[in-house]
């Protein structure tokens, strides 16, 4: 099921991931024959309890983990086998900010651009623009230790957006922040994704966050397979939010 738009940017067909020797003692099935398609321009919120395999799905889409069975494709390519083909086409915002401590804020934002081989003037100009967009003007030359948690996460968002990748993967990027900061950053993040026409997969364990961010919510059950798949039109967000919330709560409580 694709829900919504027609062309799929991300596709998981009958994907399973088993850690340890499949069928052997101690083998752990994290993802079980999962079918999931994400349309271009869609903002998918992937929701599930801790340990339900969200991060495994995330790593397979990112090309950091190979599926045991099935096929993952992003823009028609296998992100694990064609790893280098995704240079500049996919960006990740991680749970922690994961800033390189030996680089200043602006140097951290420039990392992806350096890898893409952009000139130093272009890198600096793009990085300055994104830092300014995220409210970090004046902090360009600060090292990560001198920034607050919220500011560091803003730098990591700037780093992801700076490469102008079409696909954004976000692994609970605001979960370590206080609610006020997280809410503000979420709003900025959604605005930036929409304005820049990105396809995004946003992993979260918060129902409110999923409802706030997603065009579509997929709720996973253990081992990661789809329990609920719902398209969130603006009307559905306005009229049926409580019903959807109740359904999700029911699945997560089971």
């Amino acid at each position, binding site marked *: 099921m694709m829900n919504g738009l027609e062309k799929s940017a991300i596709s998981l067909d009958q994907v399973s991931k088993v850690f340890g020797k499949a069928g052997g003692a101690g083998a752990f099935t994290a993802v079980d024959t999962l079918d999931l398609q994400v349309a271009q321009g869609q903002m998918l919120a992937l929701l599930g309890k801790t340990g339900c395999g969200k991060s495994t799905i995330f790593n397979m889409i990112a090309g950091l983990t190979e599926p045991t069975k099935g096929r993952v494709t992003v823009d028609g390519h296998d992100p694990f086998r064609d790893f280098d083909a995704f240079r500049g086409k996919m960006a990740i915002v991680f749970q922690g900010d994961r800033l390189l401590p030996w680089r200043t804020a602006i140097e951290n934002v420039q990392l992806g651009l*350096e890898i893409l081989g952009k000139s130093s003037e272009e890198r600096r100009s793009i990085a300055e623009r994104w830092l300014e967009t995220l409210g970090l003007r004046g902090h360009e030359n600060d090292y990560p230790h001198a920034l607050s948690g919220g500011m560091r996460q803003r730098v990591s968002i700037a780093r992801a957006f700076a490469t102008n990748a079409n696909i954004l993967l976000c692994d609970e990027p605001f979960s370590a922040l206080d609610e006020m900061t997280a809410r503000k950053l979420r709003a900025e993040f959604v605005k930036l994704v929409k304005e820049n026409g990105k396809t995004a997969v946003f992993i979260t364990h918060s129902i409110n966050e999923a409802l706030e961010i997603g065009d579509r919510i997929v709720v996973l059950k253990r081992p990661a397979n789809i329990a609920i798949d719902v398209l969130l039109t603006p009307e559905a967000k306005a009229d049926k939010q409580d019903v959807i919330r109740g359904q999700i709560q029911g699945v997560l409580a089971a």
Partner: protein
Amino acid sequence: MTAAQYQESGASRLGTAALRGVASYVVPFTVIAAIWQIASLFFPPFLFPSLVDVFWRFIGIVTDWSQFVDVLATVLRILAGLAGAFLIGALLAVLMARSRMAHDFLSPALTLFQGIPALSWVVFAIIWFHGIESRIFFIMVMTTLPAFSFQVLGALQAMSRDLTEMVMSFRPSRTKLFTAMIIPAILPDILTAWKVNLGNASRVVVVAELVGATGGVGYQLLQQQQVFDMAGALAWTLQLVFFVLVVQAILTLIESVAFRYRAISERTL
């Protein structure tokens, strides 16, 4: 208290702390020097020479090119040996980090090498090699190689998985991964390894020169021993100590520039 008084008292506290820091270095040396100088009044010069004599002998070595060239020879041997050991050690460490088989083979071999005394390597070198420089280079490399390998391996293994994964998510080339992630992440451990091995190397080079060389600080020490010239022995030893202190200071300076990104609390630990 006014702002000016507060600033003044802060500056005074800083000044006192700096003085205390300098004193903590100077006092032990002064006490040892004083005891030595007193001993020189009661014992013959071949046992406890006056520190004034040692000082002038020290200056004599530095200002006389024919003697100072021996100091330079030793310094170059130390640096060449350390550079060789570091390059080979880093290569072995990368191999061990990348391949389980290489790790299982090299790790016990390096541990074995670590257990061989420096003097044994001197004997092996004399038997295996003809040239003096190749002998000393071999001894220096073999005695410092295991430490460099294990220290670089430890640094590679301690690299943050999260940060590596983040850099990998941008799909860097191998060169870029190396320059943007690996080198900055392991640099603190590399500098520590150099500091530790510098001390070891300066001790080993003297043994190597003592037995298998016709020049250098070790060779000169042997000459002083043969004529029971304690002032000369001390003056030549101090040349080496002075070199180690200078290089340690340079490494510390590099650290303070390269690691300026660290929070102050980390640096003051």
